[in-house]
Structures are given as structure tokens and as C-alpha cells.
């Protein structure tokens, strides 16, 4: 078949460039399309799940549905004493929904819309799910100026320290039980008013897939799945999870108050992924560690190790990471010897492995689990001197 030059160009345009462009176009924009399709509510409405992201809901003020307060919640002091405080403890009342959803409310004997809040789909059943719904990803993230709160509770003046009056704030932040000799001291607000020991929670280490890595000497090595580490109460610190830690100052006058929901809750454009995990590199560090003699070695103030924590203005940029020098720098670090020894052994093993590929390489297990401890030693760890 004799194909002319012009026809060949046309064929090329149709058969080569068009599919290419389509493919590239799809590759680039497919995620956006899939997201917008999901969020624009193309699916038929079932009225089984409530979303704040629906345009009609977004046009309403928070107070048009949520009454604050509408009940009492329980909280505990650091000493373990219980108390009750006014809170938003329940779903909005029917009147908040019925103006727009009358049709769904009165649809048959078992209206599906009831299933959003009620445990039984029946006009006569009053039982409701817990509020807010446990284990459901929130559609909101929290706006919190961390530095403002640090500044306002951390300021103190050193003028009177030598008169034995002042106890610097943040000092001995009570990771652990208060020592008897400290009970008489003035109890200043500090990090623990929000970050208490994570009592009553259980932690599990998330599974990791074994991967390959390249070690310092260029040797390829397998990084194993890590071992499970038992995490005791107090190992981690809690994040504030309820209104109490905010309402104690912001309930009525100090803005944002209990009715300025948007002062703290920022609606995500898309539903947020559940964040029930903590990214911790040095998993073996225990805030609440107790020595054989009954002392608590990790009793320095929080900012002595979390050196970046006071620099951030928002939660998004907050960096609680503890640089290695906080644990192992000459003069201030307590663990220089152990960490240096471990790194030296590892380097020795790597040299041996070059000669004998079957030889084992020490993993860094003083601070890390086997997974993290099997990777290349980062540059930040190398200047550690004994």
C-alpha cells in the first residue's frame, strides 16, 4: 500500500500523538478528577452518612446546629481527681435538620436518615451513637498557635529566684509522679496541662515491610521487619483530645470562645485520613523510665530535648523531633558513651562484611527498633564524641 507523506502525518497525529497526549493528560489530571468526582457527590444521595463538606451544610453557621454547651463531660486532673465541665456532648436536635430534610425524615417507617445518629432506624427509638462518633476520621483539623500558648504560660521573671520564691515554669514537668518534697512547691502551668502521660492507652507498633538498603560501604542489606516493643503507660505523652484543655481558658471571654468553633476547627476540603499513629524514630525512649533506685532519669524540662518546639507558630510546622545532640552531645548528653560504642561496632562490622559478605552487621538498638536501626547511620550521628 502506497501511503502519501500527508496521509502519514495525519495518521501519526491520530494514532501516535492523540493517545500520547490523552495518556499524559490522564496521568496528570486523573487524581484531581477522581477527587472532585468523589467530593462533588456524583453518587446518588443515600442520607446514611452526614458530611460537613456538603455545600448546603457549609453555608450554615456552626451554631445553627450545634448548641454549646448541651451537656456535661468528665475530665480528670493530673492528680486523678474527676470533675465535670460543660461541653458539646450530643448531636444537634432534630429541628436543626428537619427544615431541609423533611422529606427524608418522613420517608416510610424506617427512614434511612435516622441511621446517622440513632442506633436503631425507627421513629420510636431514641438511642444514639456516642458523640463524636468514635474511630471516625474527623472532617476538621485543629488550628492552634502553639507559640502563643507557650509564651503566655512560660514567661517568668528571674528577679526573685534567689529569694527562694520562684520556680521556673516548665521545670520538672511531672512526667512522673510528684516526689514528696515537691508537693509543697508552687505548681506552675507547663507543658503537662495539655501533654499528660498517655495513661489508659495501649500502643502497638505498626507493621513495616522488609526493604533493601545500601549501607555506608556500599553493601546492599536487607532491612528486616521490626520486633514488637512493649510500650508502658507514660512512655508517650498525650495530645489534648477534648474541649476541656481549651475551655478552661477559652470558654466564655478569651477568644476563640466555646461558640467560635471555627477559631480552632478548620474544615478540611476532603475528609482527613485517620491519624491514630505516632511517628517515633527512637521508639525505645521512655519518658517515664524508672531506674532500679527508684529515680526518674528523664526529668529535665521538655524544651531541653525538644529544642525546636518553641519556634513554631502553628501545629502544621511543629517539630517535636529530638536531635541526637540532646541525648549524646559532649557535656550535656547522658548517652554519648553508649551511642558512640554502638556506632563504632557497626562501622567495624561493616568493614568485616566487606571481607566476608556472610558476616552480620550490628543494628542500632540502644534507641531504635531493628527496622530503624538497620539503615545507614545518618550524618547527624557521626560527630558524637565519647
Amino acid at each position, binding site marked *: 500500500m502506497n501511503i502519501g507523506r500527508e496521509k502519514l502525518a495525519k495518521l501519526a497525529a491520530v494514532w501516535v500523538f492523540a493517545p500520547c497526549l490523552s495518556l499524559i493528560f490522564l496521568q496528570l489530571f486523573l487524581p484531581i478528577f477522581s477527587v472532585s468526582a468523589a467530593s462533588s457527590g456524583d453518587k446518588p444521595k443515600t442520607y446514611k452518612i452526614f458530611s460537613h463538606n456538603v455545600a448546603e451544610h457549609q453555608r450554615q453557621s456552626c451554631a445553627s446546629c450545634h448548641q454549646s454547651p448541651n451537656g456535661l463531660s468528665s475530665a480528670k486532673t493530673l492528680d486523678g481527681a474527676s470533675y465535670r465541665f460543660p461541653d458539646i456532648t450530643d448531636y444537634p436536635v432534630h429541628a436543626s435538620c428537619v427544615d431541609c430534610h423533611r422529606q427524608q425524615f418522613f420517608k416510610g417507617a424506617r427512614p434511612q436518615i435516622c441511621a446517622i445518629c440513632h442506633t436503631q432506624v425507627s421513629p420510636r427509638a431514641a438511642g444514639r451513637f456516642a458523640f463524636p462518633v468514635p474511630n471516625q476520621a474527623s472532617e476538621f483539623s485543629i488550628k492552634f498557635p502553639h507559640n502563643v500558648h507557650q509564651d503566655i504560660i512560660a514567661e517568668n521573671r528571674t528577679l526573685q529566684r534567689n529569694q527562694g520564691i520562684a520556680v521556673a515554669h516548665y521545670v520538672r514537668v511531672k512526667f512522673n509522679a510528684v516526689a514528696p518534697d515537691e508537693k509543697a512547691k508552687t505548681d506552675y502551668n507547663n507543658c503537662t496541662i495539655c501533654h499528660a502521660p498517655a495513661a489508659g492507652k495501649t500502643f502497638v507498633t505498626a507493621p513495616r515491610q522488609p526493604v533493601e538498603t545500601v549501607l555506608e560501604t556500599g553493601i546492599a542489606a536487607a532491612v528486616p521487619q521490626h520486633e514488637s516493643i512493649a510500650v508502658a503507660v507514660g512512655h508517650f505523652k498525650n495530645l489534648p483530645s477534648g474541649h476541656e484543655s481549651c475551655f478552661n481558658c477559652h470558654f466564655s471571654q478569651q477568644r476563640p470562645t466555646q461558640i467560635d468553633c471555627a477559631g480552632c476547627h478548620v474544615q478540611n476540603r476532603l475528609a482527613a485520613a485517620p491519624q491514630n499513629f505516632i511517628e517515633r524514630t527512637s521508639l525505645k525512649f521512655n519518658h517515664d523510665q524508672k531506674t532500679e533506685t527508684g529515680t526518674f532519669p528523664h526529668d529535665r524540662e521538655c524544651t531541653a530535648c525538644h529544642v*525546636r518546639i518553641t519556634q513554631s507558630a502553628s501545629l502544621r510546622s511543629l517539630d517535636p523531633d529530638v536531635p541526637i545532640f540532646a541525648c549524646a552531645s559532649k557535656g550535656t548528653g547522658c548517652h554519648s558513651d553508649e551511642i558512640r560504642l554502638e556506632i563504632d561496632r557497626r562501622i567495624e562490622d561493616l568493614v568485616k562484611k566487606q571481607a566476608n559478605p556472610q558476616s552480620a552487621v550490628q543494628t542500632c538498638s540502644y534507641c531504635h527498633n531493628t527496622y530503624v536501626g538497620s539503615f545507614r547511620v545518618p550524618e547527624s550521628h557521626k560527630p558524637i564524641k565519647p
Partner: protein
Amino acid sequence: MRVLAFIICAALISASALVSISAQDTAASAQPKRGSIKFTAQVEINGKTEKLDRKRFYLVRGSRQQNAQLIKKIAATEPFSQDCYYANLRRNGSQVSDEFVCWLKNNDCESPYCREIKTSAEAEAVPEFAAAYRQSLREYKTPVLALKWLTTNLPANLRAGFYDQQKSVLRELVNLGRVSAQETTRAKKGTASVGEGFQSIMTDRLGNAYFLDIDVVPPENKKTETYLVTNLLPIVFGDTGYSWTCEVEVDPAKPQAPIVLKNEIGKKKCEVVTKKISAACSLPECQAKASKTTAAKTND
């Protein structure tokens, strides 16, 4: 023909991916090196060294010369003490009791947020707390919650008024510092990925703090880059306000030796401006606490 089209298409996509990866590599290699600074802030009064704990310091990109306008503004800022704030409130007709002022002083606090009022007796001892406690009791019904949430019923000017006033002055200085740092950053040609050049940090109880991850793009014939460490707003200690503007050379190759910010006058690269607090700010002397408040019975 379709097979040929797909082969060409795959080749094109692979080529575009390769170009993209190599562009990322180039961007990564163009990233500036990073350094860090450790510093200690202290003042020496009558031969005695006092650490400046819980004080906020700022790191601004550029030398003293590059930040001349900012330094001029810092030097012109008058120190403003807690006593000045409450003396002004009284002059303007607000009721601030001696008991309230002395509670703050005796507890070493700058605001009532610094610690909880633990007992009703402690609340009743200070007129402002007593009024807030009674209002809280009416609202929240239980003494425990009325004490825990006592600050929600304190007047705004007593809750965080001093902090807010400082913040309004500080905001202007921070904006100026940020703009100054950005101008220095923009002047660094050929380094597209350098950061903002402005950081802040608070000192710990020993007066120590770190600035970490500082972008370093040294000028030609130099291995270090110059930054300015300053507290922007005068730190009031005793009857004097102190403002530091100190040049620091940040070297990404080796850790910076710790810097000590002292109240030494006459240093060319590290200036400290000291100003006495106005005499009009003086408030009555407070008696030391008669007894430790937390030792009181908590039978509310």
C-alpha cells in the same frame, strides 16, 4: 500501527519522567548547606550573672549593616515592664488591686495563666480572683470547676493585657525583621531554594537555646554566612531593659561554638542597648508570701 504508537508513546513518557527526575536531582543538589547556633543569654548585675530564661530570641538573615533599619527600630523601642502596665491601668482609671499585683509578683508570674488558683481561700484573698470565682460559681455550679476555670471570668485587661500590649509592639518589629531577612535572601542570586531567613526560639531555664537548620549560602571568598541574633523587644530585668543585636557567623562545616549574649557595652559586632524603666512605673512594694499557697487545705 497501534503497537508502534504505544512504543513511541512509552518512549516519550519515559523520556519525560527522566527529565523530571534529573530536574529534581538538580534542585536537590542546589539546596543550601545548613548550620546551627547555640547561645546562652545572661546579664551581669553587680558582678553576679543571671540567666535569661524563657525569653524569646530571633534569628534574622544578614549582617548588622544589612539590617540597619531594624537595628535602629530596636534601639528606639522603650522597655515596658509589668509594673508599667499596671501603673498605666491605674492611671487610666481601671481598678487593679495591690493584692492582684502582689500575687503576680510573689508567684513570679506575668499573667494569671501561669498557675491555677487551688483553693477558694486563695481566690478570696485577691479581689479580682474573688469576683471571678463568685461569677464562675454562678455559671459552672461546682467549686472545683469554678476554680479551674476562674480565668474565664477575669477582665480581659488582667488576663492577658500585658502580653497583648507587648505583642502589639513586637508584631511591628517581627514584620520588619521578616522583611529585612527576605530582602537579604532575595539578594542571594542563583539560590532559588533558600528559606525565609527568619526564626524564633525561646531560651530554656538555663538561658540556653538553639537555632537549627539555618540555610547557609556564603558570599564569594567566604565559608560562612552572617546572621543577626536579637531579642527585638527589650527584655526587662530589674529596672533595666536589654536589647541585643549580635552578628553571628554560621558555618555549615563545623558546629558553631556556643555564643554568650552578655550585657557588655562597646562590642562592635554585638551591641546591647540598655535603658532604665521609667520612674513613673513604680508600684508599691509587696510583702513576701506569708505561706505557701499550695500547702493550704484543698477542701473546697
